[in-house]
């Protein structure tokens, strides 16, 4: 463990010290605070979260069995779905009425469970499209290269630094479609960083990644915290949650059933019940 990582982990631990391990526990400095978030599809209530806060500068894992509503909750928070009711603040601004692209501009950037690399574009173009506030993205300005060339060069510099860091620099001229599944995950994360987000939302970052790449992906996620970002990620793999999460929120059947440190969560009977279905008779399955 590097010194930087130790410092990051210690800071996150200190920020969460004294937070009770119960659903909806208030945090000292919450970057995201949601209340009464409900999303129903017809009669099915996919998400019904009373209250949740995410501490700034920490890595928070959102876990739960399949169908618990994790991804739906993610989609709601990032503006990719509309809630039936509920409201939330992100970084001091009301965010529940924002559209997905406005959420991203406000500093909350997401990745997808099924990686969305822009396959028929080069890796470098995938990165450049991520940069915010580009003058050349206005149609008329696009016609006058003089207006955007400087900004483009600066974005390119930044993209190359990130590609170097994510070990994709040799692939920069390749089509994104030529990358392996794991490399696409890395590209997606690197691309999200082009927006310089305050909070990054990773939907199953480890899904479909081979074990060799897993470790490096974990390190990259820790680096995000060390660089001052807040990370919220959905994950199934408890080992991974243990290794990198500072805080864990558990969802089951659309509700937030508990929160706590990874150690508290692994000892929590409610979590075990939710995963293993202890309330149900085995014969019913």
């Amino acid at each position, binding site marked *: 463990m590097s010194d930087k990582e130790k410092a990051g982990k210690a800071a996150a631990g200190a920020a969460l010290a004294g937070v009770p391990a119960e659903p909806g526990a208030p945090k000292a400095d919450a970057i995201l605070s949601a209340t009464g978030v409900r999303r129903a599809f017809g009669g099915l209530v996919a998400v019904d979260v009373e209250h949740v806060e995410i501490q700034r500068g920490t890595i928070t894992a959102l876990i739960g069995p399949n169908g618990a509503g994790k991804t739906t909750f993610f989609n709601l928070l990032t503006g990719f779905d509309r809630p039936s009711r509920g409201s939330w603040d992100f970084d001091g601004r009301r965010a529940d009425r924002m559209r997905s692209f406005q959420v991203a501009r406000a500093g909350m950037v997401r990745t997808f469970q099924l990686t969305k690399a*822009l*396959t028929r574009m080069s890796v470098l173009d995938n990165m450049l499209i991520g940069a915010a506030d580009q003058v050349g993205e206005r149609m008329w300005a696009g016609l006058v290269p003089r207006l955007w060339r400087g900004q483009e060069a600066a974005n390119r510099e930044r993209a190359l630094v990130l590609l170097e860091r994510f070990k994709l620099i040799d692939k920069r001229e390749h*089509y994104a*479609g030529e990358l392996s599944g794991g490399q696409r995950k890395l590209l997606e994360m690197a691309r999200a960083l082009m927006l310089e987000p305050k909070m990054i939302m990773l939907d199953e970052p480890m899904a479909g990644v081979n074990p060799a790449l897993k470790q490096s992906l974990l390190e990259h996620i820790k680096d995000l915290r060390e660089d001052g970002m807040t990370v919220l990620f959905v994950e199934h793999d408890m080992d991974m949650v243990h290794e990198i999460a500072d805080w864990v929120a558990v969802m089951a059947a659309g509700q937030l059933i508990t929160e706590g440190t990874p150690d508290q969560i692994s000892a929590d009977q409610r979590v075990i019940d939710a995963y293993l279905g202890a309330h149900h008779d085995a014969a019913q399955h």
Partner: protein
Amino acid sequence: MDWQFVFSQALTQAIGPTMLVYALGAIGLNLQFGYTGLLNFGQAAFAAMGAYGLALSVVAWGLPFWWGILIGLAAAVVMALLLGIPTLRLRADYLAIVTIAAAEIIRRLARATVWSDTTGGSDGMRGFSEPFFELIPWDRDSTWTLLFVSMDNGRLAVDFGIFELQYSYRDTWIMVVGWALVLLICGVMALLVHSPWGRVLKGIREDEEAVRSLGKNVFAFKMQALVFGGIIGAVAGFLFALSRANIQPDTFTTDFTFYFYVVLILGGAARVFGPVLGAALFWFLYNILSQGLGEAIRADVIPPSVLEMTQVGPLVFLLLGLGMVLLLIFRPQGLIGNRKELLFDVR
């Protein structure tokens, strides 16, 4: 039979007025479909907006020619907005359905008898093109020769020795204006698609949710592509109307749209000059086949028991269709498309 004549004719057509109409219509589609992935199946209606905008302004409302051009362009913009606002937030196929239906509605409205005093109903309109041809900067009797290009009493001839291209006084003017527009618009397109704006369009084509997650207002970009592509479609409509000096509603059927698609796919989508090359090849093949077969029948090379003159038209389309299928199998990227791009799964 005179192969030299057939070939000359086909070549004349391959860079002639009709080819320019196809090229322009397909350039507009290229922005929408090739770069942004918008399935606009109503490009014929955008052309109709241009053509009818011009004709109605000049003939029915007695406005000056340039007002007609402005009104035609404005009509295309309005139509793009009307179609785009409800559909661009939905999945891509909705736009396809709505545009194909809208194009039929436009055509039916244009040929409706209710207001045929104004629109001419199914007979269409004429008498709007004089101001355009009055702009021709050379006289009807001008005659000169420059190397292999010559003008004889206002008519243009290009003599390559074995074959000769000839254009009438008016066609020559259509070509001067048409080629100028094609080159200008291709220049603008080249700048646009290589700008960050064009990059966002390509991103939307690949995966619009990803682009949305990166903070881009996808709806606005799609709308810009739809409007600008529609404007280019209207320009194709102007040229179409002026080159024939009349308009008829039934020339704006969905076939017209699908020829634009053929041209685009033939040339290579998402390439700036793809539509231009595609239009030239498409119109060359169409002409060499129909004129070649016609000539062969006239010269009794093909006896009437095998093929009659009236069957040439359908046979040519059958052959072109077959050619299209073979192209999609053996060269799906078109003439100048990038094969590599097709090797990946789109999802």
